């Protein structure tokens, strides 16, 4: 674009056409991003997925039915019974406020009364379109708008991001990645221009991010690290100073307005890096000022003296504050990120969550396909140019590779930088090989140059076939790869990331789909057949779902803030009936819910999670619960005839396999998950609880806790007596507790 003459095509300015094309491309990218996230809605229905989204959905419903202040002061007495949860002060309200605002705007301004559930379901796909645009702007700062457009489409359809933002996955990450990209874009812009305006925008989006996701700490550390590296590289400028000081001061103050964050930014060590770099920047700025005023020899003395002074003061202050007990910089948490075994040994509840497991290599390729090997090439290109913003991409890339390797859920934060780096690399390739204009132009220049060899002038008259052909070759290959990339992304999204996990799907032998809807069946039963204030005991995984779908009080849920309480539930599950009954009565439990997949082969059931319950319970009651007791002599985890006595007597085992053999007409049953046979002899018998409901595929089984006996027998005697009289009468085989239908 050296010549300034306005080119025109069909009488329209080329810039106008370019703008038009760009807008069309944006709309297409957003369309692709949104539509590829709709698989689950089309296949199943508009439904909230998994576990955490159910809590967010419930909180959002609370927000739109109550005022904003009531929401912030919300004390939820329907979870963590009998403790309750200060929900308003312990959640990140950004997500709920966003969908609440959309709901209000649509209803009040446009008179479109849309169900809040549909807004919640479709929020993540809608924001993915915005993420694509934010990624465009970020990448544009790194290279040019061509790379930006590529990054936008990569970001739109990369499975690594889709995994957390399909329709129905109404989680904090759904909007957080958008905000992450926007914050980074404004930071790069602010740092480049040294503008207070962009610095303020960075702070504003940072605030939004803080309100939406605990992962904001990533920004809190990445930006200071970027500044720190730039200072080390001797790239301090006034622009950097302006941008960082603006962002830090405003962003920190703003983030402290979120109740859950509160005073963390000046207390917790996660935020200390940002504070430290802020201090360092002031010193560097002062040094820079002094340097400009005095000659270099004096400056050297000044530098040495002040360095010694600052270091000794800093160390002194650190020791003094630690001694006074104001700060605790070397606590266990500090090491947990670096020593990856720390959490595993000391905090079983962290180790039990599959999201906290390390990532094997297939996951990286699965989530990014072609981009994963373009990523190093893109980083290499960044090193070639190494402007200030490229340093940012490099730091982000290396650091996030580490985090994503350690914890599988952090693939989510790695995906954007892979898309950016991949787009930089690929657009460089297109720059070199797609632009055929210079081939002809070169020819023209060569013909004009008189001193050039005459050979080339002769060749010039011919069409440059070979160069054209080589360009074509590269283009064919890479177009093919990109085409394949789209196929890969669609396949991954459709096969792996589009299951609501509330509703399961299986294939019949003839290929038709079979929907397994046990969860909702059971939750609906709870909702309709139990008293409104009934307390339901279940493992914490299902707490949010029971709260959201069945609207019943739970003892523990997915917000795992109280380890002891979870261990109590674990203990009830892994103890024998008498111990368990005591716990159940103490906690007013009326119903116990277990997930059992042995009949249809659903592997995510409670028996498979059982060892974690045992471990967590053992952490609190090491004298009463022993993990070893659940393994056979040979150290195997068995549920068949070889199962240990403790295993067979545990409440969970009994609840899972109660009357299981009746399905096999009294013969040994087969557990399809563990491929073990359940002996019909001494089938589990229940004394203190009775079966209340079992869903059609046996996935959810609900038991009612028996009340104390009317005539003062213990429950074993009572059950035995009842059984005897049943036998004599031979009237009812199936006995269900009499329950009244709730009005």
């Amino acid at each position: 674009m050296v010549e300034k003459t306005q080119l025109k095509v069909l009488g329209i300015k080329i810039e106008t056409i370019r703008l038009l094309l760009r807008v069309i491309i944006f709309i297409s990218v957003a369309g692709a991003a949104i539509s590829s996230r709709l698989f689950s809605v089309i296949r199943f229905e508009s439904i909230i997925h998994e576990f955490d989204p159910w809590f967010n959905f419930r909180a959002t419903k609370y927000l739109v039915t109550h005022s904003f202040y009531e929401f912030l002061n919300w004390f939820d007495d329907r979870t963590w019974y009998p403790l309750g949860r200060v929900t308003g002060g312990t959640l990140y309200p950004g997500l709920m406020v966003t969908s609440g605002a959309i709901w209000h705007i649509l209803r009040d301004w446009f008179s479109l009364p849309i169900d809040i559930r549909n807004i919640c379901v479709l929020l993540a796909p809608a924001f993915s379109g915005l993420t694509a645009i934010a990624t465009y702007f970020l990448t544009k700062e790194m290279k040019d708008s061509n790379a930006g457009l590529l990054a936008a489409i990569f970001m739109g359809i990369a499975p690594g991001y889709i995994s957390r933002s399909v329709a129905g996955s109404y989680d904090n990450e759904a909007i957080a990645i958008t905000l992450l990209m926007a914050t980074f874009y404004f930071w790069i812009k602010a740092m480049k221009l040294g503008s207070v305006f962009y610095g303020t925008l960075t702070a504003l989006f940072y605030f939004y991010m803080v309100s939406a996701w605990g992962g904001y700490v990533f920004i809190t550390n990445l930006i200071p690290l970027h500044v720190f590296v730039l200072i080390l590289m001797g790239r301090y400028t006034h622009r950097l100073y302006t941008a960082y000081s603006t962002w830090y001061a405003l962003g920190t103050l703003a983030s402290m307005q979120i109740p859950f964050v509160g005073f963390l930014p000046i207390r917790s060590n996660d935020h200390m890096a940002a504070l430290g770099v802020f201090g360092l920047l002031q010193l560097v700025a002062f040094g820079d000022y002094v340097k400009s005023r005095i000659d270099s020899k004096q400056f050297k003395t000044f530098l040495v003296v002040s360095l010694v002074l600052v270091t000794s003061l800093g160390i002194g202050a650190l020791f003094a504050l630690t001694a006074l007990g104001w700060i605790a910089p070397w606590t266990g948490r500090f090491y947990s990120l670096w020593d990856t075994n720390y959490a595993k040994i000391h905090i079983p509840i962290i180790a039990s969550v599959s999201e906290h497991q390390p990532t094997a290599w297939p996951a990286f390729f699965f989530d990014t396909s072609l981009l994963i090997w373009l990523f190093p090439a893109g980083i290499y290109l960044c090193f070639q140019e190494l402007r200030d913003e490229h340093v940012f991409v490099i730091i982000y890339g290396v650091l996030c590779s580490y985090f994503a390797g350690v914890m599988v859920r952090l693939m989510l934060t790695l995906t954007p930088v892979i898309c950016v780096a991949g787009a930089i690399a690929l657009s460089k390739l297109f720059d070199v090989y797609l632009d055929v204009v210079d081939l002809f132009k070169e020819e023209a220049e060569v013909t004009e140059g008189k001193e050039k060899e005459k050979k080339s002038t002769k060749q010039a008259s011919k069409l440059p076939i070979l160069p054209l052909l080589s360009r074509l070759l590269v283009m064919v290959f890479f177009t093919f790869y990109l085409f394949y990339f789209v196929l890969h992304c669609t396949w991954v999204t459709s096969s792996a990331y589009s299951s609501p996990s509330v509703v399961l799907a299986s294939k019949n032998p003839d290929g038709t789909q079979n929907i397994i809807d046990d969860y909702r069946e059971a939750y609906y039963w709870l909702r309709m057949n139990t008293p409104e204030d009934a307390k339901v005991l279940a493992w914490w995984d299902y707490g949010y779902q029971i709260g959201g779908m069945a609207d019943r009080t739970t003892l523990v849920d997915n917000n795992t803030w109280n380890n002891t309480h979870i261990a109590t539930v674990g203990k009830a599950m892994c103890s024998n009936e008498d111990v368990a009954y005591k716990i159940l009565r103490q906690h007013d439990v009326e119903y116990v819910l277990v997930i059992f997949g042995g009949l249809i082969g659903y592997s995510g059931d409670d028996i498979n999670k059982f060892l974690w319950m045992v471990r967590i319970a053992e952490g609190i009651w090491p004298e009463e619960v022993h993990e070893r007791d659940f393994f056979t002599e040979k150290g195997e985890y068995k549920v068949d005839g070889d199962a240990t006595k403790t295993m067979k007597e545990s409440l969970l085992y009994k609840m899972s396999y109660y009357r299981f053999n009746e399905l096999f007409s009294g013969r040994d049953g087969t557990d399809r998950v563990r491929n073990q046979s359940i002996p019909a002899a001494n089938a589990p018998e229940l004394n203190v609880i009775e079966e209340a409901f079992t869903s059609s595929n046996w996935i959810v089984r609900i038991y009612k806790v028996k009340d104390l006996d009317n005539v003062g027998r213990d429950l074993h005697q009572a059950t035995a007596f009842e059984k005897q009289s049943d036998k004599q009468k031979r009237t009812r085989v199936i006995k269900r507790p009499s329950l009244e239908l709730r009005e």
Partner: protein
Amino acid sequence: MRVSILQFFAVFASLVSVGIAALSNDQLQNLVKGQGTKKVLTITDDNFAEILNGPRDYHIVVLLTSESSQINCVLCKEFRPEYELLANSWVQDHPNGLTEKELEVEEDFTGIPPKNIYFFYSEFMQSRNFFQIFQLNSIPKVFHFPPSDKAGPNNFIKEVKEYQFFQGQHSELLRSWIADQTGLKVNLYVPTDYYRIAVNFIGLVSILLLVRRFKKQVIQIITSRFLWSGFSLISILLLTTGYMFNQIRAVPYMRAHENGKLEYFIQGQQNQMGVETQIVSFIYGILSLLFVVLIKKVPEIKNSTVLFIAVAIVSVLIFIFYSLLLCVFSLKGMGYPYRFINFF
């Protein structure tokens, strides 16, 4: 070895003077005091009957183990220092046994009256008979013998309690086990390792001196863009191919079948072996390198025929390696449907 033999003689000598009856608390106390820096007493075939046959007025904890190279027990070697640390910590807190004050506590919450604890160590090579009594088929074992007033021989076999080995910090686990058994809390004192501090200090100083001496070269290295980019790229290649997974899970490098066939890839998206990281990072690296060559080096070729050939070669190579990557990925199962060329 020499130390333990000496220890043995010390024990033996004192035994001869005492006779056959079980040792009293004071005698054991003197033995512990007679020890050097390591406060663990030794049990062998010659003295176990005297020590363990009751009545006893104290707790005895014995580690049955072997450091012999014939047996080659990894856990034994791993466990012994932690055991000794625990014993030393106990003696450091109670150089003269339990104090009056501690003894006064009749029964605390555990319901076990407080009695002193003595730590013993038994090496298989010197106490085969002793090991035979317990019919052990695996070591290490930690046994606890509670106080007893029964005088009969070999009564201790019925009184023994065994410690279960678990994953984790041995000293902590053992400590809580001892607390369960004896009702006494052992405070751990990790001794300051002056040797290591000195080594670290000398290392630091020498590095600083070296930096000062080769200031120019050091600065050159630190500011070298080549080194930094190499470091970043290699770490990215390793980290995105499951290096951390290998570290955390301690997976095997590769697996050999009985028929001698080596297995390089294991099924499953959430699983991998050590060699997979190397293979896959190599493929990624080659692909990235070829890509960079394609956009940086190849366009510099002036001659159009050579250019075409170079472009063709690089493109085809990328294609081949990418196909290879897809094939390798399909090996991991999951029914991945896409492939360019089928290698295997």
